[in-house]
């Protein structure tokens, strides 16, 4: 599905990521683990094209996508959420999700100005689609609320809904359970199961909550100061000497 080959990223003199390699298979949920500053979000930004890697290659669906622009990468089928929630603050939940459909809604600028029949047809079609996504995520009752007025947990779900609207094959979640209480993260874990099946997704996620990781991830990779120190199943990770040594106290097991 996606493969990172020898990815290195330097900012000035600082090496954020050093020779990162991993491969995620179709349908997998893959965890990117490590303390703050380990280079996880940088890895996401490299995949989504916000940063160009200093060296290395990214292969997605057998295609080299290194150095592509973010908007191109979304069209190829990779969507993301943000660590520090970034919803469009003037818009409702519904409109936020509709933005995700931007590339799929098919009418021209002139058809919009002159309100051609296709405009109404397409708008209706994708508004129904948006509603479906909201229903799956149990957000439909907040449809017309200003997105940023929702609770933290619900805002994270709106970000997921917005990402799903781009109809991705690969979903990147940056700390999806952060700021959620226990029952909320339980619910999120279930929702991830559901959307994975419903939308045929492969997921890569960054997370600090190890219970959550154990529940949802098939495989994880652990980074420490840009270097990979472990790759395997979540259960093995928790037993790994190196990981325990490096992160004792950082895990909230």
């Amino acid at each position, binding site marked *: 599905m996606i493969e990172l080959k020898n990815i290195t990223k330097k900012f000035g003199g600082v090496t954020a990521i050093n020779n990162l390699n991993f491969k995620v298979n179709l349908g997998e949920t893959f965890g990117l683990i490590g303390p703050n500053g380990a280079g996880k*979000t940088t890895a996401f*930004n490299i995949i989504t094209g*916000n*940063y160009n890697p200093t060296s290395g290659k990214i292969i997605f669906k057998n295609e080299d996508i290194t150095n592509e622009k973010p908007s191109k990468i979304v069209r190829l089928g990779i969507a993301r959420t*943000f660590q520090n929630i970034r919803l469009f603050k003037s818009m409702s939940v519904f409109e936020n999700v509709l933005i995700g459909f931007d590339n799929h809604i098919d009418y021209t600028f002139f058809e919009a100005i002159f309100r051609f029949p296709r405009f109404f047809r397409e708008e209706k079609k994708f508004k129904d689609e948006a509603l479906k996504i909201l229903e799956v995520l149990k957000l439909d009752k907040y449809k017309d609320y200003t997105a940023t007025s929702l609770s933290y947990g619900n805002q994270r779900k709106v970000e997921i809904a917005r990402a799903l609207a781009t109809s991705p094959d690969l979903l990147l979640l940056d700390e999806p359970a952060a700021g959620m209480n226990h029952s909320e993260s339980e619910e999120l874990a279930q929702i991830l199961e559901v959307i994975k099946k419903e939308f045929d997704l492969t997921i890569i996620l960054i997370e600090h909550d190890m219970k959550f990781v154990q529940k949802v991830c098939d495989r994880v990779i652990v980074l420490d100061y840009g270097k990979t120190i472990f790759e395997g199943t979540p259960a093995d990770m928790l037993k790994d000497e190196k990981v325990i040594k490096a992160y004792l106290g950082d895990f909230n097991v």
Partner: protein
Amino acid sequence: MIIQQTLNALSLGSMYALIAIGYTMVYGVLRLINFAHGDIMMVGAFSAFVTYSVSGSFSLAVLVAIFVASITGILTYKIAYKPLLDKDAPKISLLITAIGVSFFLENLFNMLFGGIPKAFNYPKFFDKLIHIFGAVTPLSSIIIFVVTFIVLLVVLWFLNKTKYGIAIKAIAFDMNTVKLMGINVDFLIILVFIIGSALASLGGIFYAISYPSIDPLMGVLVGLKAFAAAVLGGIGSVSGAAIGGFILGFSEIFVVAFFPDMAGYKDAIAFFFLILVLLFKPTGIMGIDFERSRF
């Protein structure tokens, strides 16, 4: 003729450089195009005009101009920009107040002094003709260039060698870290406005001596050109602003010297540079890159 024109270009470039520095420093610390900056130059020129007419002392006039311009700069920051920065208002709000302040100053001075250009008086010795390398030039153009050169060296020394200067350069890259280091950021920003306004008032006086008249709208076009010079040099960089200013000064003088037909379009050169820089090297000559992604 070449020497003559070179001297003219140096004094015109000096003026642009002095004003461009204010734009570039404010942009560096606040990421804001301070539209009022050109008008602060006008305020300086008018202050010198009034003081010299009343007191007859030119050095007093220069000091008063620097003082009044600096106060105007500080007030602009404190009243118009700071409240919005504190509220974390969107950048467009700041730009709108900046334009508002600019328009306010122009119209206030228009109301107080009238819109008709006023002859600017200055001591006669500025007009004394100097023979240099076979060219004849008024003393003023030499003074303008020499003063600007010294001022530039002082500002660069201040920014690179003193504690406050280094801190100002640090905010340009990471304001939060500077805050965490326990440095009073507000004080540094005020310092930036004082330096910028003081230099702009000098530029205003030099402009007034060269032309020699002043009017409430004099800062608009010169300010715009100086901003273009700052972008050309690489916005955020003080030496870049100076270099950009001199390049613009030379271009304007020599385009007119070699192509007299183009004289009417002299004022469009800065704009032409601005577009070219944006197209081919957005970070300007000194190439400071503020485009770090904010993820």
